[in-house]
């Protein structure tokens, strides 16, 4: 019973494909892919609509106000109203803009964001795009975002857009390193770049109780934190939303976009957030596995989306809590703290592996991480670094 | 038990060395980290030393040797090694313990110095080198550490480099000891030539073992004397003692650590270490080389004690006292009382460090004043310093019962009295004992008794971090005497490997009364002479020393260090200056003229050839070059500086190759 519920979507797809028997294989393949793409888009666009209103409501809760509550029950139809508004708004293209680039940028950015969703396993046997180097695919395609952001900034022919794009690229490139390097320990330990294999490696339970998710190892916990922070940066979320800091540079690279193109950017950002959270779940939080063996009867995709909602809530929570950081702080943090810590995670994972993956390895890798963490915090003298900035250039 | 320490002896000097390196890499502002590192390094060294000390207690005549190959050249292999025996172990513990006290003391003493971190780096460096020196099992390794110690001493004497006197003193110390080291080096080479090894102990093949000694023969005396030159330089023995008093220009903790307790004792240690070399072919315990050691020691001991009487600088008095005590140790070694000498060395390390630190505390309290005539009455203002200083003074003067210095001095006197060759050293040393008590009494009276004078009016007791090491060292001085008494000479037995039993009756010996009487005589004379020191007395002004008033000639002679420095100035230094002038003149006029002459000849020849060249050969060459230049101009047209042209040419070339290949195929 639970098995059939678990595989219900796959069975549905098989049933749909069974109508096509007799057609050439390549056509069946195309249709299968189309079904995957359609399902993916449907789920995540709904999720996007949902999260956009939920975020506003949660933020409002945190700020002691109501938030949207006029359209539909509890304001749940707010995204539909927003969507209609965006669609019928005038699409303004600046006269001196580079029109082709200006037009292509939102498309590219959205396409890239959606492509990255493809390699994440959402449930048992539910990876839309099964590929051997899935993690590499994720990052390779994800790195195209930088180019898209640059296109938006350049194409708008506006100094705010350009500055925003520069900031975005600077911080994205800086954090791409810790992001990727914090993934490496997992890849090393599992010995594969395939998301499915990584999820499978986290299937067991220690003493039948504690799941063997990588986040429960010292290196995994540290790497997950690094990954999460880098993910915040990559998706331009608070407290790293310098590229679109309203109070400084209007809306960064999105300044000159309006109407549906702006909505596309907005959507791409959220989808990027889903993708990076999904990858985090896959890599560190056990993918679609249940946290307890007893709870395995619940369908796998339910677990995935439960974890995803927790992570998304944390994103929103952080947005409601933390102020924006300065660009120089962001950069310092990336190169002086995140990168060395990420490298330490690799070493700690190796230590964990060679000390037998047991309690001894656990303690040793904890020791390695603690030592480096303490040394780094002493060397960086954080209290001094985050003191008010002495402006040398702006006078 | 503890066997890993025996195989890892190198760890002991490595700990302070590592601390030093890390401190040097820190920035100046990291004072706390520097101190913490230095003290951790020293504590580690102390802990390891104690661990290494443990096994030596278990067997008499214990000796652990660990040799290794350093490098191989041709068929020879240079081997170095580490050695642990009672001598080394006792030295290790003493050095590390005294060093630790002095490190702690320096935290307070140097608190206001701007080069605080550098100071600790140097101190740690010194400490590491000294510990390494003690455990070296090769004359070469010992020499290496010996020179490192010298370097550290140089750096620390000249620590306040902005003071010209400090820089000069550092230079003087370095050069003077280098003269001795020259002898040491020559001795080492000679020894290597004779015995083919520099290892002390190498399971029967070492240069200090019977097989090695047998190879030396008659040259042993000369080798021993050459090595003794090094000891003379390092330990400030006559005639190379002149640098040690000047070395007091360095910070007081440095004086305490290097120029009182440890480094200067290295000379004594060296002689003790290579003692078998000195006693080759000994008749009744007497050899020519040992006789030289005795007489140099006696001269130094007496001379320095005399000079000390007429000095005004509190540290200089202690420096001359150190020189004198080192002389005493040398005598002890020379007359065959090796254990007695080393015991005195260990005891001296504690109480002289105590005295120096006390002096440092006094100087600190008096805001940098070092002239004892300007002090006075500090007994009430600095009680802790006074008490500990008094303990040190009693130990140095040789008061027996519970003060370590007394017992060891007594042993030395005992050994000297039994020297078969002559009784003169014995009586001269007795005079030295009186003098020691005298100058220490003088100093005590000037500094701590009487009324406050100009520098001591605003004096204050030093902070806890400075008094604690004083108390620790004072306690060490007292408790150390437990193992030294003639009733239970445990340390003597430990060093010599002889069995020891307790015998209370031996506590009372004739020598005890002799020494007690002499010390009391010295103290009484001192009290009587200086009872009115620093006070207007009849027609003597307050600032004039009673001795100077009574015997101006003698006092002047002594106050000017017996004119030995001036003697050197007018002989050795003047001579080398003359030689330098001569060489300069030779270089400037004679050799230069010669070179100029040759140059002139060459020039003439050049003029001659030039004309031939220009008229005859050039004409032909000119034509050739003109042709070449034209060709070059033609070719350089293709050299357009345009990358794309070049690349295009490459592409065309590739094309041509391809076509050629296709055509051939």
């Amino acid at each position, binding site marked *: 019973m639970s098995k059939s519920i678990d595989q219900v979507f796959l069975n549905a797809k098989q049933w749909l494909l069974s109508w096509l028997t007799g057609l050439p294989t*390549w056509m069946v393949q195309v249709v299968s892919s189309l079904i995957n793409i359609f399902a993916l888009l449907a789920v995540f666009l709904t999720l996007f609509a949902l999260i956009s209103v939920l975020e506003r409501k949660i933020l409002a809760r945190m700020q002691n106000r109501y938030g949207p509550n006029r359209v539909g029950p509890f304001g749940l139809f707010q995204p539909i109203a927003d969507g209609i508004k965006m669609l019928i708004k005038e699409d303004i293209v600046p006269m001196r803009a*580079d029109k*082709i*680039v200006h037009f*292509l940028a939102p498309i590219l950015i959205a396409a890239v964001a959606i492509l990255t969703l493809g390699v994440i396993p959402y449930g048992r046997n539910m990876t839309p795009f099964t*590929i*051997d*180097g899935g993690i*590499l*695919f994720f*990052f*390779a*395609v994800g*790195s*195209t975002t*930088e*180019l898209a952001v*640059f*296109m938006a900034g*350049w194409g708008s022919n506006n100094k705010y857009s350009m500055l925003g794009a520069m900031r975005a*690229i600077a911080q994205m*490139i800086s954090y*791409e390193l810790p992001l990727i390097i914090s993934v490496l320990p997992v890849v090393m330990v599992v*010995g*594969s*770049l*395939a998301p499915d294999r990584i999820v499978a490696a986290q299937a067991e339970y220690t003493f039948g109780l504690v799941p063997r998710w990588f986040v429960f190892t010292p290196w995994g916990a540290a790497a997950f934190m690094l990954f999460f922070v880098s993910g915040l940066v990559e998706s331009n979320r608070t407290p790293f939303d310098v590229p679109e800091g309203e109070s400084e540079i209007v809306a960064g690279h999105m300044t000159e976009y309006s109407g549906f193109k702006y909505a596309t950017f907005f959507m791409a950002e959220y989808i990027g957030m889903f993708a990076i959270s999904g990858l985090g779940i896959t890599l560190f939080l056990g993918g679609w596995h249940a946290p307890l063996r007893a709870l395995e009867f619940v369908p796998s995709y339910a677990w995935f989306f439960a974890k995803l909602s927790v992570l998304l809530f944390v994103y929103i929570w952080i947005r409601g809590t933390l102020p924006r950081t300065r660009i120089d702080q962001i950069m310092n943090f990336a190169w002086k703290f995140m990168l060395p810590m990420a490298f330490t995670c690799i070493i700690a994972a190796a230590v964990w592996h060679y000390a037998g993956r047991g309690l001894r390895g656990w303690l040793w890798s904890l020791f390695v991480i603690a030592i480096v963490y303490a040394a780094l915090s002493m060397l960086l003298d954080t209290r001094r670094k985050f003191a008010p900035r002495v402006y040398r250039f702006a006078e | 038990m503890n066997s890993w320490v025996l195989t890892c002896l190198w760890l002991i000097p490595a700990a302070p060395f590592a601390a030093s390196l890390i401190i040097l890499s820190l920035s100046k502002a990291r004072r706390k980290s520097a101190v913490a590192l230095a003290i951790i390094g020293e504590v580690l060294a102390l802990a390891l030393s104690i661990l290494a000390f443990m096994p030596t207690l278990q067997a008499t005549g214990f000796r652990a040797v660990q040799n290794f190959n350093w490098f191989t050249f041709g068929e020879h292999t240079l081997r170095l090694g580490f050695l642990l025996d009672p001598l080394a172990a006792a030295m290790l513990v003493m050095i590390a313990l005294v060093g630790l006290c002095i490190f702690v003391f320096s935290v307070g003493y140097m608190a206001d110095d701007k080069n605080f971190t550098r100071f600790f780096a140097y101190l740690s460096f010194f400490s590491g080198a000294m510990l390494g020196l003690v455990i070296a099992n090769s004359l070469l390794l010992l020499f290496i550490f010996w020179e490192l110690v010298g370097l550290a001493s140089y750096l620390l004497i000249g620590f306040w480099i902005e003071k010209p006197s400090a820089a000069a003193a550092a230079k003087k110390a370095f050069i003077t000891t280098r003269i001795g080291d020259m002898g040491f080096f020559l001795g080492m080479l000679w020894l290597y030539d004779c015995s083919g090894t520099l290892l002390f102990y190498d399971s029967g093949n070492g240069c200090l073992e019977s097989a090695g000694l047998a190879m030396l023969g008659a040259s042993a005396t000369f080798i021993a004397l050459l090595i003794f030159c090094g000891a003379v330089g390092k330990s400030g023995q006559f005639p190379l003692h002149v640098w040690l008093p000047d070395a007091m220009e360095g910070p007081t903790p440095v004086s305490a650590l290097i120029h009182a307790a440890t480094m200067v004792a290295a000379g004594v240690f060296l002689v003790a270490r290579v003692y078998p070399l000195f006693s080759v072919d000994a008749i009744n315990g007497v050899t020519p080389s040992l006789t030289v050691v005795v007489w140099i020691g006696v001269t130094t001991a007496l001379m320095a004690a005399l000079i000390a009487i007429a000095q005004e600088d509190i540290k200089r008095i202690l420096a001359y006292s150190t020189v004198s005590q080192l002389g005493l140790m040398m005598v002890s070694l020379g007359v065959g009382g090796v254990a007695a000498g080393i015991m005195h060395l260990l005891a001296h390390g504690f109480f002289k460090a105590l005295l120096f630190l006390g002096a440092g505390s006094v100087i600190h309290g008096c805001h940098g004043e070092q002239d004892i005539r300007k002090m006075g009455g500090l007994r009430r203002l600095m009680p802790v310093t006074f008490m500990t200083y008094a303990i040190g003074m009693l130990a140095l003067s040789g008061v027996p019962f519970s003060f370590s210095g007394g017992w060891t001095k007594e042993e030395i006197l005992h050994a000297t009295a039994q020297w078969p060759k002559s009784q003169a050293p014995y009586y001269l040393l007795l005079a030295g004992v009186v003098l020691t008590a005298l100058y220490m009494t003088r100093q005590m009276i000037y500094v701590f008794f009487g009324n406050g004078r100009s520098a001591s009016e605003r004096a204050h007791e030093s902070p806890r971090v400075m008094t604690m090491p004083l108390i620790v060292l004072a306690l060490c001085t007292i408790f150390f005497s437990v193992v030294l008494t003639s009733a239970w000479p445990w340390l003597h037995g430990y060093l010599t490997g002889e069995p020891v039993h307790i015998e209370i009756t031996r506590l009372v010996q004739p020598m005890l009364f002799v020494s007690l009487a002499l010390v009391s005589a010295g103290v009484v004379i001192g009290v009587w002479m200086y009872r009115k020191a620093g006070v207007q007395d009849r027609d003597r002004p307050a600032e004039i020393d009673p001795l100077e008033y009574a015997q101006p000639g003698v006092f002047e002679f002594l106050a000017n260090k017996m004119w030995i420095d001036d003697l050197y100035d007018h002989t050795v230094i003047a001579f080398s200056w003359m030689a330098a002038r001569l060489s300069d003149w030779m270089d400037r006029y004679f050799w230069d003229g010669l070179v100029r002459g040759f140059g002139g000849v060459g020039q003439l020849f050049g003029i001659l050839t030039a004309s031939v060249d220009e008229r005859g050969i050039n004409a032909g060459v000119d034509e050739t070059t003109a042709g070449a230049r034209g060709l070059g101009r033609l070719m350089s047209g293709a050299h357009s500086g345009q990358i*794309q042209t070049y690349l*295009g040419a490459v*592409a*065309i070339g*590739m*094309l041509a190759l*391809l*076509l050629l290949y*296709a055509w051939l195929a």
Partner: protein
Amino acid sequence: MNSAAFIVTAIFTVAAALAAATLRNLMHAALSFAAAFVGIAALFFLLGAEFVGLALVFIYIGAVAVLVVFTILLTRRDVGKDRGFNWGGATVAVAVFACLTWSILKTQSLAIGAPHIATLTVKRIGAALMTTYVWPLQCVGILLTAALIGALILVMEERR
């Protein structure tokens, strides 16, 4: 191997490369350059070298293309001016193309289909990199480090 996909990819790649080589607008050319590399990566995918294709995308789109556009940005004062076109160079290029094509077509032994092949997994590539090719890998690492430092030194502001 899917011929339809191949034809589309090949046309796309060649078109993008041609645009990259000939477009007047520097920025457009740089973006076409990125597009051309997407096409080349797709060709690699078709050839079964997925890892290389992903690496190509990762390195060229994520790094080199961004570098190129940044360089264009930093040398912007120079962008607007007319560059002119060197027809001599174009002739040489066309000649090279003609010659290469002629020789490829002439060589009959090259007209072979793809044999069946075991999938080239990332694991196999990793194993090869860590065993047979470990020295080249280290050398490339050193080279990249040197290039990184060299590039930094080249663009560092001169202190006055």
